[in-house]
């Protein structure tokens, strides 16, 4: 399901590989990303460019990933469409996640935090 790209030895771009991250597939997404973290990836960018719809289950999983990483690394998100950005705002997730307009901006920000 997920596609990954390493932009830097410590930064992994994660693409959910679906246009709809919902209750139908959120658990599979979570399992795959948790496995990625267990294998050592701890500085992640979730790229929502190809995701057009995120429901509450999908949002819950993204928060679960943030908790899984905890203090061992960082998680940022990028390329949120207007609806998903609005959902992040109304749920105050924009106070929890760093949100970037592109993977490049997200990766640059993580690099600067090393």
């Amino acid at each position, binding site marked *: 399901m997920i596609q990954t790209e390493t932009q830097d030895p410590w930064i992994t771009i994660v693409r959910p590989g679906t246009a709809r991250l*919902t*209750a*139908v597939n959120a658990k599979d997404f979570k399992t795959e990303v948790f496995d990625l973290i267990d294998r050592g990836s701890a500085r992640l960018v979730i790229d929502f460019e190809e995701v057009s*719809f995120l*429901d*509450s289950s999908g*949002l*819950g999983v993204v*928060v679960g990933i943030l908790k899984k990483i905890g203090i061992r690394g960082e998680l940022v998100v990028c390329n949120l469409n207007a609806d998903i950005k609005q*959902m992040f*705002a*109304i*749920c*105050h997730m924009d106070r*929890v996640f760093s949100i970037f307009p592109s993977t490049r901006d997200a990766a640059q920000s993580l690099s600067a935090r090393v």
Partner: protein
Amino acid sequence: MFCGAIDRATGHMSYCQAGYPSPYYADPDGRVQEIGDGGFPVGLFSEAEFQSHDFVLEKGGRLVLCSDAACEAEDPMRNQFGVQRLRNVIATFGRTETAELPGEIVRELNAWRSGALLEDDLTVVALGRIKHHDSD
């Protein structure tokens, strides 16, 4: 999640919102607006803080709460029903008895879905402040 306590005599409502979607308020003239500006979802962050806010339901006004299944309901082309259509439905049925409003909303959603079952559980609650209360 939305939690509110309403004083039936004055229409004053103290409420707290967690997550989405926001409820809708239809004023006595039929204008529909969303209430609240969101909040952290319940249960995700132990350190999350929630704030209560105030709102007054006018006589003849009504409050409509729908779970996210309503605005996220999709037609066969995967277009979502959306907030604006929901507001329009509430406005369109502005003269319908409050008790019948949830049924009308469900009928509109079913029509939008062309009869297909919703993908999520749906809750619709409508509360109206009657124009002549016993305590007035």
